[in-house]
C-alpha cells in the first residue's frame, strides 16, 4: 500500500510536470482552431455551451487559409529541403572531418583543430555580413545553396564527431587495414555504424537548427523569392503592434510536426548520444 501511494504521488507529480511542459503546445493547438475574435481569450470553450456556439468558437478555416492564401505548403517544402539537405551534408562532412582529426596523423593537425575550435568563440552575428557579401557576389541570392552551404562548416559537429570517434579503439582500424580495407570501406563499415548514436544526435540538432533558422533565411532571400521558408512565413503574421494569433498558431502546428516526428523516431539514438559521456566510468 505504501509503495502504491509512493508511485501514485510520483506519477501525480510527473503528470503535473508534463502538463506544465506541454501547456504551451496545448495552448497553441487550441488557439489554432479558434475563430479570430476569440484569439486572446483564455477560455477554451464558449460561455454558453451549445453546438452553435461551439461552431462559432472553433473553426478549421485557419488551416485552409495558411495553405491556400499564405502558401505555407511551399514554405514547408522549402524548409524541409533546406533542413534535410543541410543535416545530411553536415553529418557527412563532420563525420569525415571528425574521423580525420581523430584517427589520422598529418602535419598541423592539432593546430588546425584548435583553430577551428577557436572560431566557435566568435558570435554568429559577426559572420552574417561577410557571408552575405560572398553569397551576393556568387549570385546565390534566392537559392537553396545560399541557405544550405554557409552552414555546412559546423565546428560544433566536427568537435562532437571527433571526440566520439576518438573513443573507438585503434585496433579496429589496424585490423581493417591488415585485412586490406580501403579508407572508404573503413569509413563505411566501421566509422558510420559505430557512430550511429552521435550521428543521429548531430542530424537532429542540425535539422532543428535549420528548420527554425529565421534570420539567415530571411536575409538571403528577397521578399518575393520562391524559396522562402517556414520561419520567415511565420514572422509575416507578426506586425509592429498586432499579431494574427490564430493563423500564427495554425502555421506553428504545421511547423512542429516534422520535429516531433523526427524526435520520436530518433529519440533512442538521441538520448544515447547525449548521455554517452555522462555514464562513462
Amino acid at each position, binding site marked *: 500500500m505504501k509503495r502504491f501511494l509512493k508511485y501514485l504521488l510520483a506519477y501525480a507529480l510527473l503528470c503535473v510536470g508534463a502538463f506544465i511542459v506541454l501547456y504551451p503546445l496545448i495552448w497553441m493547438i487550441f488557439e489554432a482552431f479558434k475563430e*479570430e*475574435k*476569440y*484569439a*486572446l*481569450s*483564455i477560455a477554451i470553450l464558449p460561455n454558453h455551451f451549445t453546438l452553435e456556439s461551439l461552431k462559432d468558437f472553433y473553426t478549421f478555416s485557419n488551416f485552409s487559409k495558411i495553405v491556400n492564401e*499564405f502558401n505555407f505548403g511551399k514554405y514547408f517544402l522549402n524548409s524541409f529541403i533546406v533542413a534535410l539537405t543541410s543535416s545530411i*551534408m553536415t553529418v557527412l562532412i563532420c563525420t569525415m572531418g571528425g574521423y580525420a582529426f581523430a584517427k589520422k596523423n598529418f602535419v598541423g593537425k592539432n593546430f588546425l583543430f584548435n583553430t577551428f575550435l577557436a572560431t566557435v568563440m566568435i558570435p554568429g552575428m559577426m559572420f*552574417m*555580413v561577410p557571408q*552575405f*557579401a560572398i553569397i*551576393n557576389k556568387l*549570385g*546565390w*541570392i*534566392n*537559392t537553396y*545553396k*545560399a541557405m544550405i552551404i554557409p552552414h555546412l562548416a559546423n565546428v560544433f559537429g566536427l568537435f562532437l564527431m571527433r571526440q566520439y570517434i576518438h573513443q573507438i579503439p585503434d585496433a579496429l582500424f589496424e585490423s581493417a587495414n591488415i585485412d586490406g580495407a580501403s579508407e572508404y570501406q573503413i569509413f*563505411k563499415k566501421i566509422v558510420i555504424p559505430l557512430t550511429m548514436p552521435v550521428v543521429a544526435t548531430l542530424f537532429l540538432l542540425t535539422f532543428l537548427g535549420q528548420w527554425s533558422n*529565421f*534570420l539567415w533565411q*530571411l*536575409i538571403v532571400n*528577397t*521578399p*518575393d*523569392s520562391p524559396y522562402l521558408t517556414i520561419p*520567415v512565413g511565420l*514572422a*509575416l*503574421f*507578426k*506586425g*509592429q*503592434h*498586432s499579431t*494574427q494569433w490564430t493563423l500564427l498558431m495554425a502555421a506553428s502546428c504545421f511547423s512542429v510536426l516534422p520535429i516531433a516526428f523526427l524526435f520520436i523516431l530518433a529519440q533512442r539514438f538521441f538520448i544515447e548520444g547525449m548521455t554517452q559521456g555522462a555514464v562513462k566510468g
Partner: protein
Amino acid sequence: MDKIFDAIVVVLIVLMVIWLLIPGGGTVNKAGTALTVWVTYSEAEFKIYKELCKKFEEDNKIKLNIQLIPWGGHQNKLRTACNTKTAPDIARIDLALTPLLALGKAIEPLDSYGVGKYKKIIVDAAFDTNIVYNMRTKKNNIYGLPDKTDCVALFYNKKHFRDVGLSDKDVPKTWEEFVEVGKKLTVDNDKDGLIDRYAFGMNNSLWWTFPFFNSFGAVFINDQTGECLLNSPKAIAALQFKKDLFSKYKIEAGAWQSGAVEPKAGFLNDKYSMILCGPWLIADCENSGMDFGIARIPAGPAGSFSNIGGSNMVIFKTCRDKKLAYKFLEFMVSDYFQVKWCTSLKQIPVNKKLIPELKKKLGPRMAVFLDQILSTRSRPKIPRYGMLEDAVNQEMGAALQGQKDVKQALTDSKIRCDEIVKQIFEE
C-alpha cells in the same frame, strides 16, 4: 546491397556537383521596375497599400517593385543590405532605426528636396522622428517622412464602470481622478481578501512609461548634447506616481511582472478595467464583443501627453532614382493616399490637415486618438536606442519591485545612459 549503397553515394555526389554549378538567383532590384520598396505591413495593410500605389504607377508611368518583409527581421535585413550595397530604393523602417541609418550614411538626407515644407503639414512628433542631429557637423537633417503614426490612449471597460456605479462622465481626466476612480474599480467581489479585478494593468518598459513622463513634463534625453535628464524632479515624480499605482494605491495589478497576465490579455479577459494601448487594440476589443471606451491620457502637471510610435519611409543612398523616390514619399503623405489608407484601415493620418475630416469618418473611438496624436512627444533620436531602453527598463523594474528607491533608480539610469550615449557618440 553494398553496391547499391556505393551507387547511391556516387549519384549523390554527382547531383551535388551539378547543383553547385547551376547559376542561381535574383537581385533586390527587379528588372523593369523603377523603384524597389520594402515595406513591413500586415497582410491586410499590404493589399491596400499595393492597390493605392497603383495611382502613383499610373501617374508616373512606371512600375514599382513593392515587397513585404516581416517586421520582426527588418532591422537586421536592412543593416545587412546596407553593408553589402543591396538595399532597396525605399524602405519602411521603425522610428528607432532612422538615426542609426542616418548617421551610418545609409540613407539620403532630404533637406535639399524641400522636405522642410512638411514640418507644418505632418503631425509634429511624427515629423520630428525624422530629424537627426549630427554631433560632428552640429547640424540637423531630415531623413524621411512618416508613413504611419500611432500613440497610446486610455482604454476602459464600460461594463466595469457601470458595475461600480460609474459612467462615461467619470472617466478620469487627470492622474488624481485616475487614482480615485481606480480605487472604486479595484474590487474583491467574493470578499475573500483577494482582489478579483484590478482597475489598471500597466507595462514596465520605457516606451510605455513615456505617457507618464510626458504628462509630468519630464524629458528623457537632450537630443543635441545627448545628456540623460531622467534624474530631474519631474521624471522622479512621474515614476514615483507610476510605482504608487501598484504599491501605494494598490489599483494596478502588477501586470508588468514576469509571469503576470499582460495588460492587453488582462483587459480583453475582464481582469483589468483600464489599460494604456494604441489603436491596434480597437479591432480586438470589438471582435471580443466588449463594451469599451477610449479616453485621452489623464493629464499630469504638464497636461495630457502620449508617446509616439509608427514608422518612417526613407530613401537609401544607393537608390536608382532619388527624385522619383522622393516624389513617392510625397505621394504617401498626400491627401489622396492618407484619406484612403486611414479610412480603409482605421488609422491615424500623418497629415494634420486631414484630422478634422477623418475624425468624422473614423468614428468616436478613433477620434480620441486623432485628438491625442496632437499632444505627443517623440523618443530621443539616438542610434542604438534599444540599449538605452534596456538600461532604463532594468532600473525602472528595480524601482517598481521596491529593490531601489525611485530617485536612486533614475539616477542610476542617467549614469548608465550617459555612458552608453558617450560610447555611441565616440564611435
